């Protein structure tokens, strides 16, 4: 799908909690086909400290309504500025960017594992898997109750399992400590979250010989493969997070 640069309208800005919000965007022209794992490069207006665009995963797409959702965590000045956008405001984005999660072979047992703002691409991925006949389980990890992001939408995709580090909800500990990993046998794990979580999941997968894809974060200059600022060290040498990724098979990564 050809990349494009476009100004979309904000149709909704829904605050989930202190740190998270969802922007719904709608375009005048038909939005392009997107694949789960792809991202958009967002231009931030009116934020003096924010010079470059910011990469944000596609959280959800509704082709019928011609809308697109981004789930964003306030991490600094740029995302803070985005959190103040109002319906009617305009957001300039470059999209769709990056590769995508691969479709599993028929009949495979799939787990989606995510934490923090890393759950963003998993909704779109889950819906995509469902529409292709899979019934993924979903395992979400959060620091504590306060940090939990509403996950009702995920329940429509499959069974949702929860961990919190302090045990205030769900199982106590990290996602890799959740008992479901012992009781269920997964053929594939798709993971997105903080680096330590992805590394733990990658290690678990490797030990148990499970196919595992992660969506990496990295600082980005351009998002389109032009600047080579987003290098990630792989068995095939330095690759670009933005065009060769953000989704990588963990066996390719030199972690």
């Amino acid at each position, binding site marked *: 799908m050809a*990349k*494009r*640069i476009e100004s979309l309208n904000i149709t909704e800005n829904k605050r989930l909690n202190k740190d998270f919000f969802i922007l719904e965007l709608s375009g005048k022209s038909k939005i392009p086909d997107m694949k789960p794992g792809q991202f958009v490069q967002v231009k931030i207006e009116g934020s003096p400290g924010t*010079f470059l665009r910011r990469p944000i995963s596609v959280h959800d797409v509704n082709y019928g309504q011609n809308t697109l959702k981004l789930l964003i965590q306030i991490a600094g000045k740029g995302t803070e500025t985005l959190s103040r956008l109002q319906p009617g405001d305009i957001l300039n984005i470059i999209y769709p960017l990056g590769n995508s999660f691969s479709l599993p072979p028929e009949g495979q047992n799939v787990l989606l594992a995510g934490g923090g703002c890393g759950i963003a691409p998993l909704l779109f991925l889950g819906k995509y898997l469902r529409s292709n006949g899979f019934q993924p389980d979903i395992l979400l990890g959060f620091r504590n109750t306060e940090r939990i992001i509403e996950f009702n939408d995920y329940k429509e995709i499959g069974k949702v399992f929860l961990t919190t580090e302090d045990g205030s909800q769900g199982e106590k500990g990290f996602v890799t400590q959740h008992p479901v990993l012992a009781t269920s046998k997964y053929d594939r794990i798709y993971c997105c979250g903080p680096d330590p979580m992805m590394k733990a999941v990658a290690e678990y997968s490797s030990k148990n010989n499970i196919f595992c894809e992660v969506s990496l974060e990295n*600082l980005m200059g351009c998002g389109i493969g032009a600047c*080579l*600022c987003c290098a990630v060290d792989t068995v095939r040498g330095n690759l670009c997070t933005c065009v060769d990724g953000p989704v990588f098979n963990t066996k390719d990564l030199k972690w």
Partner: protein
Amino acid sequence: MVKLDFKIGDLHFKNPVLTASGTFGYGLEFDDFLDVSRLGGIVVKGITLEPREGNPSPRMAETPSGMLNAVGLQNKGIDYFEKNIYPDLALYKTNVIVNINGSYIDDYITLAGRIGKLKKISAIELNISCPNVRMGGMAFGTNEKSAREVTRAVRAVYQGKLIVKLSPNVTNIVDFARIAEEEGADSVSLINTLLGMSVDVKTMKPALSTITGGLSGPAIKPVALRMVWQVARALTIPVIGMGGIMNADDAIEFFLAGASAVQVGTASFIDPQASVKILEGIESYLVEKGFSDIRELIGLLNKVH
């Protein structure tokens, strides 16, 4: 219709808007966003003889109105370039310029020789900001002796147009520009990035894996413009200006200061269409101000002062 073309020697450019090396990939990355052939030319990313893996992550940091990079010339080397990239580049209907880099003078000589055989490549941009390994790691471009040697060596083996890209990290950039002219360069381009640094106070670590890196973007525009102005007054060969050009007004500042052409760098990251928008903006400005040829604008500041 305003006249926008310019020449380096007998090499014709349909307009004076080029893209800067390392910020426009091989042009191909931008095909979805614009018709690359509309530009006066593109300078492709820095190439070396052997493949280079570049520096470890993190390779960039954002700074006030700018960015630091420490890419470290990651590229697949000249062999790969000739075989896999050149054929695509040859289809563009504009000037394609190759930015060459090396650690030894011999690297530059070999590279220039190989590029000289590629018909479609209009010119070489000789990047002398690389550390000169034989001279103890000081960049070729910050030492007059090695700047002269490398320019002379490349000039001797390369018949095409030779553009020497100057480093701003020097006391007097005019000295280096003069050396380039004396050694037969057809043009100089400036500025490359300013050497800068950034620290992450949360982690108390340098923001870049290499600690220091190259500063680009609007932050450096005043320095770039000053250097272009100084160099344009001192040389007779055409000067290509760059450094923080984000829009047509920025580009026009460079023309007024004496640049014959401009390169758009970091701007393409924020808006991949920046280069063509700048081209269109320059045209409108000329029409509005009643100029019929961009040459009337070039160095106007020097004429007045």
